[in-house]
């Protein structure tokens, strides 16, 4: 019996091909946008989390307020702050860091780029463990001064000629030896990185005490959040202002996730609206279908169709429209997600897009439910038609 209903419903859909497809497209758009937006924001979340996992959970970052990440220049943190933090005594390292724009020259090609620096003695312990591994050469260590470790893209693409280990590049007029080249990480920031020693950086910038931000690493067994609290108190006392920020990886990840959460809610809301419009499209199409087939309904009733038979046929028709729309919507949605993911990856912003089977099932189920709900009213109207009235309908 169900098989017959399905056949009737299918027959009715294919009999009005154009209109059916237009309705289905409405659902495709709704489902595709929901799938794409959820996959993309999940991918964004995945990559943010992956990045913070690599940053190391025992790090605390101290910067002047409104510090916008490497590359921006904000004063406010001083060597005194470094000393205050060291005095707390909870840290295996407290490293002042500089990130400044500098003039780079290699084989007569000149580039302006930001240069990151840490004390030579701290580089290995504070930074090298979460930076990309080396492809060639060695890391910066205690006693080094005019040396750089460079990202993969810096070595291979930034200058006209490729840079090899032991080549020399000129930074602000001073010659530096390239001692290490990082493996390609896919992250544009990392692949474009140029790291040197704080000692050399201060010298070429002619700023002997400059600090942009501080990276600390807590001793084994110490609680990161508690240590961050202590830093805040110590700095407040010493500086007598609150013009600084103390960030733990957890906090940063939470902040970003909060923003992502809001973004996701807004995007899904927009997608839901388009799905609602799609549902109204189904309803409209089903009402038209009922109207168009009033006479057929009369005929079917006169030859023995019960109300439930008619109800089933129309509900299945709406459900099938939802199913087909959901199926293609999922395909399109995933296609869009992977497309945008690949595009963002090329632009240096990797998104970890995954085809989430639960999301796909949810999308399909949701589309069918939207179809059936939109079909209920028209189907009830169809089922309630009196055979006499329906037969008279032209």
């Amino acid at each position, binding site marked *: 019996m169900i098989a017959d209903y399905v056949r009737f419903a299918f027959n009715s859909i294919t009999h009005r091909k154009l209109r059916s497809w237009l309705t289905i497209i409405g659902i495709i758009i709704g489902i595709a946008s929901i799938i794409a937006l959820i996959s993309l924001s999940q991918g964004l979340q995945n990559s943010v989390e992956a990045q913070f996992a690599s940053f190391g959970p025992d790090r605390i970052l101290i910067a002047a307020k409104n510090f916008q990440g490497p590359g921006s220049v904000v004063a406010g943190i001083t060597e005194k702050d470094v000393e205050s933090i060291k005095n707390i005594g909870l840290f295996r390292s407290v490293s002042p860091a500089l990130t400044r724009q500098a003039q780079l020259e290699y084989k007569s090609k000149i580039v302006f780029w930001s240069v990151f620096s840490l004390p030579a003695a701290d580089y290995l312990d504070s930074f090298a463990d979460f930076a990309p591994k080396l492809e060639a050469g060695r890391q910066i260590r205690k006693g080094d001064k005019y040396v750089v470790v460079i990202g993969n893209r810096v070595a291979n693409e930034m200058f006209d000629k490729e840079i090899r280990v032991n080549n020399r590049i000129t930074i602000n007029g001073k010659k530096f030896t390239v001692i290490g080249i990082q493996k390609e990480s896919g992250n544009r920031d990392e692949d474009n990185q140029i790291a040197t020693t704080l000692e050399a950086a201060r010298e070429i910038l002619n700023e002997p005490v400059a600090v942009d931000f501080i990276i600390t690493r807590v001793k084994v067994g110490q609680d990161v959040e508690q240590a961050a609290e202590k830093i805040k108190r110590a700095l407040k006392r010493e500086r007598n202002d609150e013009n600084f920020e103390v960030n733990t990886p957890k906090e940063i990840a939470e902040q970003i996730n909060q923003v992502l959460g809001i973004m996701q809610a807004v995007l899904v809301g927009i997608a839901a609206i388009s799905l609602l419009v799609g549902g109204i499209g189904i309803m409209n199409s089903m009402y038209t279908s009922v109207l168009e087939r009033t006479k057929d309904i009369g005929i079917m009733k006169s030859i023995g169709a*019960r109300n*439930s038979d008619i109800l089933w046929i129309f509900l299945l028709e709406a459900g099938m429209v939802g199913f087909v729309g959901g199926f293609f919507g999922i395909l399109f949605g995933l296609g869009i997600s992977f497309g945008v993911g690949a595009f963002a990856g090329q632009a240096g912003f990797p998104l970890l897009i995954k085809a989430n089977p639960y999301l796909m099932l949810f999308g399909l189920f949701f589309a069918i439910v939207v179809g059936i709900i939109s079909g209920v009213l028209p189907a009830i109207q169809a089922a309630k038609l009196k055979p006499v009235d329906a037969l008279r309908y032209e």
Partner: protein
Amino acid sequence: MNKVIELKDVWKIYKIDSMEFAALRGVNLDILKGEFIAIMGSSGSGKSTLLNSVGALDIPTKGAFLLDGQDVENLSESDLAQVRGRKIGFIFQAFNLVPSLSAIENVMLPMTFQGISRSERIERATKLLDSVGLKDKMRNLPNQLSGGQKQRVAIARSLSNNPEVILADEPTGNLDSKTGEDILNLLINLQKTENKTLIIVTHDEKIAKKADRIAVLSDGQVVKIIKNKK
């Protein structure tokens, strides 16, 4: 002879706003098993309303309607549909085939609603279409058939649940006279060989004269019953 349909003092009153209009005003009519009866009347005489009552498409406002001895008044709409599908085969002036279904699917349709298995439906529908001479048109859609062919499909469909009664509403009204005659002969032949009760609603006296009896309807009442001598 057994009565297959009994109408006892049947009234059908339509309400339009607060106005009441009686389309049937106390119709009494017995239809006997195996007979050929024509229902005649001018337009506005209540012919269509009577047809709806006889065909169990509509429940009378007042009075009793017995189909094969069963009072249908208290049946639910769905049960009534089931009984109708089993006991009455309809043939309409406008053929009323489902346009999206092929000839054989149209013939199978009444059996579908009775829950008959697909293989049995296909077998029976094929046989019926063969018997009305349309074996080679089984897969055609209605719009690929001539008027006469459509009415043959409709006749095959009306027989699919092997009903007691065939109820035809102006079955030749949309056909040319030669085709109309063929269709009429096909119906009369069925009535005779298969012992079906044939009810034809018509205003064509030539058709009515071939019936065993003619019920003449006027102003919502059966005013005359004429027995034709054979």
